[in-house]
């Protein structure tokens, strides 16, 4: 018996895997793969590969043969994506789901092949996106945001009951509401939320931005200065409007 039972540690981790999408007929596609492998030896060596069979009309035997053919070519399939559950037996690689697209992976040219062989096999990718079903988080600040202070709230909306000083910065994943004078910087929708808006009772801002689109004080319409203003994003850039 264990005197000190230690908890089993389970950790989530995401890796970048290559996704191979074979085409019918497999003979021709495998010939093309052989051609690529001949030009760059070891391209698939040590790389985790996910087989994407989405939309292919194949049966269990054909899929098993494809996996065997690939393993003969030193392509180790870590999982299969887009296959019906009935196609996958217990001796087959497991089903993969919820993959997120990444940038295309170019097959290396001959000169790069050696380098590619030495490159690390896996890369971590960015954390998963925000969960869709959760209500928007919000932060309420009842004090002025002072010069030099940076308020960072990527989870959602920020409401400030007070002013944002010149030289201060508010960064929010959602919208920003300032019940006071906005003199510093306000950056809304920074996690890619183009629907975020900025509201303030008095606009004297140094910079406003939504989802990466920004306006500096110089670019703002002069008649907006000192007014209650809202800012939102349209396809062709930031729009501003006077409130009330």
């Amino acid at each position: 018996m264990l005197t000190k039972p230690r908890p089993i540690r389970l950790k989530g981790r995401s890796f970048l895997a290559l996704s191979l999408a074979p085409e019918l007929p497999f003979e021709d596609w495998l010939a093309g793969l052989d051609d690529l492998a001949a030009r760059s030896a070891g391209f698939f060596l040590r790389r985790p590969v996910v087989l994407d069979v989405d939309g292919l009309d194949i049966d269990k035997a054909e899929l098993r043969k494809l996996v065997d053919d690939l393993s003969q070519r030193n392509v180790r399939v870590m999982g299969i994506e887009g296959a019906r559950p009935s196609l996958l037996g217990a001796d087959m690689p497991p089903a993969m789901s919820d993959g997120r697209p990444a940038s295309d992976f170019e097959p290396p040219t001959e000169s790069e092949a050696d380098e590619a062989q030495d490159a690390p096999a896996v890369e971590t990718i960015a954390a998963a996106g925000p969960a869709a079903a959760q209500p928007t988080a919000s932060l309420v600040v009842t004090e002025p945001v002072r010069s030099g202070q940076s308020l960072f709230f990527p989870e959602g909306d920020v409401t400030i009951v007070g002013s944002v000083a010149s030289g201060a910065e508010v960064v929010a994943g959602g919208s920003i509401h300032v019940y006071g004078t906005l003199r510093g910087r306000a950056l809304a929708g920074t996690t890619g939320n183009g629907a975020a808006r900025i509201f303030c009772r008095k606009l004297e801002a140094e910079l406003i931005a939504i989802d990466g689109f920004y306006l500096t004080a110089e670019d703002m319409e002069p008649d907006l200065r000192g007014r209650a203003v809202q800012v939102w994003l349209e396809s062709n850039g930031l729009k501003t409007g006077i409130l009330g």
Partner: protein
Amino acid sequence: MGKVIVVTSGKGGVGKTTSSAALGAALAQNGEKVVVVDFDVGLRNLDLVMGAERRVVYDLVNVIQGEAKLTQALIRDKRVETLYLLPASQTRDKDNLTSEGVEKVIAALKKAFDWVICDSPAGIERGATLAMRHADVAIVVTNPEVSSVRDSDRIIGLLDSKTLKAENGERMEKHLLLTRYDPTRAERGDMLKVDDVLEILSIPLLGIIPESMDVLRASNLGAPVTLADEGSAPARAYFDAVRRLKGEALPVTVPGEKRGFFGKFFGRKAA
């Protein structure tokens, strides 16, 4: 137990040292036991403004490093019996100030004096943060112009985050002292208005000190303005500020608007 006040601003040249000396002297003239501590190690000035530069033997750094006793370093003012000065070192640099050392000195001063006034150096580095760290009350000295106001805003942010009080979850009491206020320039609109400064900084106003040759003259004499010329406009403004600091509800008059106010008052009476 005495009260520890830090006089700070962020920006240099706004009147921290002048105000520290004047407020310290004004409090002492009211019979309170006061020590003014110069934290501007390496660029000390307070001894000059208080006319004690020829009597400095030991300084704050000596005390912190255990080379001198606190009583040896304290200099008693020749004009007001209850006013003392703890000078800064001119030859050492700010790295000689340690957090523990400052804490010890402040704790010892708090026991012996009613008011401990810490004259902070400009900037937001070590000297300034150590000067404000143990304070109970902060006096933010600001000139009515944009760069000074912005720096003061930054300092208020630090007062709310980097001081012992803030770290213990308490609120630091902060007061705004508007200095070098020039009524003629204000009339021309060359300066920020008092209301604008108050709106931006949103802390209570302790007083408005008018720009005056009396201040410069007093500094050159080596006397706080409240000692050099008690009847001058800046001296009276400092005396009023001290009364407010002690909790008196005294309305603040904006220099230059006084006449306007009385004019209106009499005008209304006549009508």
